[in-house]
C-alpha cells in the first residue's frame, strides 16, 4: 500500500506540490493525470524516494521511505519497478543486457535462466529480434518497450509508470496499456501510471487522481469521476480550450 500524506515540495522557491495526500491500496492501479509540468513525475519520484519532500510523509506498506537509509532503503526499493519517461536505458548496453541487468545484479539465476526470462519479456514486447541492438539504434517506441521489459522483469510488487505511451503511435500505445493490464492481472502489483492517455487508461485502472496547481483536486474510480461534474477534470478529459483553466 502507498500512502502520501500532506506532501509539500518547492524547487527554487516555486511550489510544485502543495499538500498532496493520496492512498493507493495494495493491488490497485491508479492513473495520475494532470497538465504537463504540473508535478506528476515529481510525485512519482517522491514515492520511490528519489526526491525528498520539504514536508509530509511517503508511506510504503506503512514504512516512511524518507526515513530509510542504507540496507533498509535497498530492501524497500527491491519491491519497485519504475518506467522512466525517457526510458533511462543504459546506453553502453544492448537491449538484452539492459533487461538482464537487474536479474544479474539482484538474483542468483544462472545465465541460462536469465536468458530465458529476458527473451520471454522481449517476446512480449515484440523485441525478440532486436536483442543485440544498442539504445541509440532503437526508435522511441522500442526504447520505451525495452525500458518496460526491464522494469517488469523482476516481477515488482509496486510498479510506477511515467508516461508509458507518450510519443508512441496509437497502436503501440494501446499494446503497452494492454500489456500493463495483463501484467497487473497476472502479478497484482500496486501501481501508478502517470499519463495523458485519457480516457483510454480508464479501462485498465481502478482509481484516477487528478493533480492541479500542486493539489489533488479529484480522486476516485473512473466511473465516479466521470459522473462527478468537476469542471477542471471535465475540461481536461474533453481537451476543451475554453473552461475554468486557461492553458495558454
Amino acid at each position, binding site marked *: 500500500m502507498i500512502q502520501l500524506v500532506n506532501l509539500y515540495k518547492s524547487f527554487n522557491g516555486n511550489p510544485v506540490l502543495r499538500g498532496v495526500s493520496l492512498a493507493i491500496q495494495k493491488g490497485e492501479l491508479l492513473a495520475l493525470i494532470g497538465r504537463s509540468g504540473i508535478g506528476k513525475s515529481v510525485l512519482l519520484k517522491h514515492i520511490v524516494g*528519489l526526491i525528498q519532500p520539504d514536508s509530509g510523509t511517503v508511506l510504503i506498506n506503512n514504512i516512511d521511505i524518507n526515513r530509510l537509509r542504507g540496507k533498509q532503503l535497498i*530492501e524497500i526499493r527491491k519491491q519497485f519497478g519504475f518506467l522512466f519517461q*525517457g526510458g533511462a536505458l543504459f546506453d553502453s548496453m544492448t537491449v538484452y543486457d539492459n533487461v538482464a541487468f*537487474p536479474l544479474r545484479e*539482484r538474483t542468483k539465476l544462472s545465465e541460462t535462466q536469465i536468458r530465458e526470462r529476458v527473451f520471454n519479456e522481449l517476446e512480449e514486447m515484440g523485441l525478440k529480434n532486436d536483442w543485440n541492438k544498442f539504445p541509440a539504434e532503437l526508435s522511441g517506441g522500442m526504447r520505451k518497450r525495452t525500458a518496460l521489459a526491464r522494469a517488469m522483469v523482476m516481477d515488482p510488487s509496486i510498479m510506477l509508470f511515467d508516461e508509458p505511451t507518450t510519443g508512441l503511435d496509437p497502436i503501440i500505445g494501446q499494446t503497452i496499456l494492454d500489456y500493463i493490464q495483463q501484467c497487473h492481472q497476472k502479478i497484482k502489483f500496486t501501481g501508478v501510471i502517470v499519463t495523458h492517455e485519457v480516457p483510454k487508461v480508464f479501462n485498465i485502472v481502478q482509481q484516477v487522481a487528478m493533480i492541479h496547481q500542486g493539489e489533488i483536486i479529484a480522486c476516485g474510480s473512473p466511473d465516479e469521476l466521470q459522473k462527478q461534474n468537476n469542471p477542471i477534470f471535465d475540461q481536461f478529459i474533453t481537451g476543451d480550450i475554453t473552461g475554468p483553466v486557461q492553458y495558454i
Partner: protein
Amino acid sequence: MNGIRKVGAFVLKRLCDLGTYGLFLVTAIFWTFWSPLKFTRVIDQINFIGVKSTLIVILTGAFTGMVLGLQGFYALSKFGGESMLGPTVALSLVREIGPVISALMVTGRAGSALASEIGIMRISEQIDALEVMALNPFRYLVVPNMVAAILSVPLLGALFDVCGIWGGYLVGVKLLGLSGGTYFGEMAIYLNSKDVFHGLYKSLSFGLIIAWICCYKGYYTEYGAKGVSKATTQAVVICSVLILIWDYFITSVSF
C-alpha cells in the same frame, strides 16, 4: 548591508560545496572497502583510463625527456657539468615531471570523458534507474573508476619516466655525443629508490584526485547539454589546478 549578505551567502555556498566534495570522497572510499569490487567494471575502467592513455603518455614522455636532454645539456655545459645530464633528466622526471604531466594527460584524456559520461548518465536518469533498481551508483560508477585510476596513473607515470629517460638518452648520447656509460652510470649513482617512491606516491594521489573530481562533477551535473559541458570543463580545470597545488604540498613535505 546587502553586499555583506551576498558575500556571506557566497562564502557559505563555497563551504557547502567543499563539504559535498569531502563527503563524496569519504563515501567513495567507504564503498571501496565495504562492498565487493565489481571486477569486470574495474578491468574495463583500467582499460579506458590506463591502457588507452599509453600512446599519449609515451609520446609526451619521450618528447619531454628529449627537451630536458637539450635544455639540461645546454645549462650543464655552461660550467662543464655535461656528465650530470643523466641524473638531471632522471631526477626531474621521476620526482616531478613524470607524475605531474602524466596525471595532467590522463585528466585531459580520461578524466574529461569520465565526467561527461557520468554527467550524461545523470541527465538521462540512468543513475536514478540504478537507485530505483536498489543498486548503489557509487559501487557501479565511482568505485571502479577510483580503483582503476589509483592503479593506472602510477603505472602511466612510470611509463612516462622510462620514455623520458630514453628521450634524454637519444638527445644527450646519440645527438650531442655524451657517453652512454656516463649518462646511465651517473644516473645510477644519484637516483635512488627514495626518489622513485616519491614519484610513485605522487602518482597514486593524483590518480585519486582525478577520479574524485571527475566523478564528482559528473555525478552532480546540472541538467541539459550545457550542464554536461560545464561539468566537464570544471572537472578538467579543477583537477589540473588541484594536481599542481597538491604537488607543491607533497613535494614540500618530503623535501
